[in-house]
């Protein structure tokens, strides 16, 4: 491996991590509060979960493509890639937030209310701690998926390890493809292991 290639692997890995990190931060910041809100609005659940489901079924390359012509969020570059990654990451986090909170034993919830807990205390002291493990599992799945999907960002000028893969595909150079795919796989494995470890720190519901 030439020093130039090694250097580029490091740069693109860093770029990849930024794409994934920013996308996941936004997805978590949107999906967890939205999931909490949805547990209080049963009729909305179908619609929102439906939307998130549809987002997941759009082939990722197509979704990136669809976003390009859109004003503000679209165009060529990183921010369009991040929007697409966020749309993909929303569903697992949202769904697990809902499942986790709705899965809290009704007897536990009822006794919390009967003890005189306020809505906020019920949420922060009972529902979220008991749902934490499930929510984190959603974050883990979303993160691992996003690490893979982010390789497509390169197709719309978003950078990241996908740059190698697309370059390798164009020049039929499997070393280049590996230079992109291998670090991406390693990051995914590390994220899976790390988040799985955090998950186990929380008590099962």
């Amino acid at each position, binding site marked *: 491996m030439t020093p130039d290639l090694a250097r580029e692997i490091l740069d693109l890995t860093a770029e990849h991590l930024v794409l994934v990190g920013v996308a996941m931060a936004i997805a978590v910041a949107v999906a967890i509060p939205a999931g909490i809100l949805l547990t209080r609005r049963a009729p909305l659940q179908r619609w929102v979960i439906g939307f998130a489901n549809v987002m997941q079924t759009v082939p990722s390359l197509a979704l990136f493509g669809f976003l390009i012509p859109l004003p503000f969020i679209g165009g060529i570059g990183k921010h369009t890639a991040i929007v697409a990654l966020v749309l993909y990451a929303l569903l697992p986090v949202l769904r697990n937030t809902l499942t986790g909170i709705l899965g809290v*034993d009704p*007897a*536990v919830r*009822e*006794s*919390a*209310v*009967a*003890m*005189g*807990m*306020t809505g906020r*205390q019920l949420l922060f002291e*009972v529902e979220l*701690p*008991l749902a934490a493990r499930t929510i984190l599992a959603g974050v883990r799945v979303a993160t691992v998926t996003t690490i893979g999907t982010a390789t497509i960002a390169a197709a719309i000028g978003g950078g990241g390890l996908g740059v190698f893969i697309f370059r390798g595909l164009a020049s039929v150079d499997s070393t280049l493809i590996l230079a992109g795919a291998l670090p991406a796989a390693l990051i995914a494995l590390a994220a899976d292991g790390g988040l799985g470890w955090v998950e186990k720190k929380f*008590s099962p*519901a």
Partner: protein
Amino acid sequence: MTPPVSFRNVSYRVGGKDILRDFSLDVAAGETIVLLGRSGSGKTTALKMVNALLRPSAGEVMVDGRPTTSWDPIRLRRRIGYVIQEAGLFPHVTVEGNVGLVPRLEGTPAAAIRTRVHALLDQVGLPPAQFAARYPRELSGGQRQRVGVARALAADPPLLLFDEPFGALDPVTRVELQRQFLELRRRLGKTAIFVTHDVREALLVATRIALLHEGRLAVLAAPADFLRARGEEARAFLACLDPQAAPP
């Protein structure tokens, strides 16, 4: 003196079904009134109106002379202890944290909570040195139920509600906990409403028994008088006491 709890012509309808019909009952200070009835007779529904988990469709439930609907529900609930079947303990919190919950919500200083929790655990027969740091999953059913009772007593509420608290326990443990209930009542003299479908338990713990049948009050009597009650539903329950005497 205003009764601590008073049901006044309370009805509860849901989905076109009358679960409680024109139910009236005054609970006297210091007594243990038992709501007895088959499952589905409306006992839990009546109980949950006292701490405003449910609102009457008609009539009102008065607590200390004020309708529950005019209480701040949080204030109301923090002065009413509530014990349910399987205890409803928080699985992610230790025994000590579970028992100290309401005092903590009320802002009691940590040292005072600790003293109180340890005294209560002793009272319900769970030595704190052994049990305070455990999680609910590390307890037997009977021990969990004891923790549930300690939790309900923690903020020293004047009123206690019990919803089939010993229903899921084996017979031996159930008798132990019933004894302990009587012992605590003798010592604390609190007003209690106790729901059960077990006529023996009712006769043992009640100062008065209110028999519910299809959402109506069928009989209201002290245990000794309940044994002589004439209504069909009362006889059906009394027949459980003596299987030989039951009709074929």
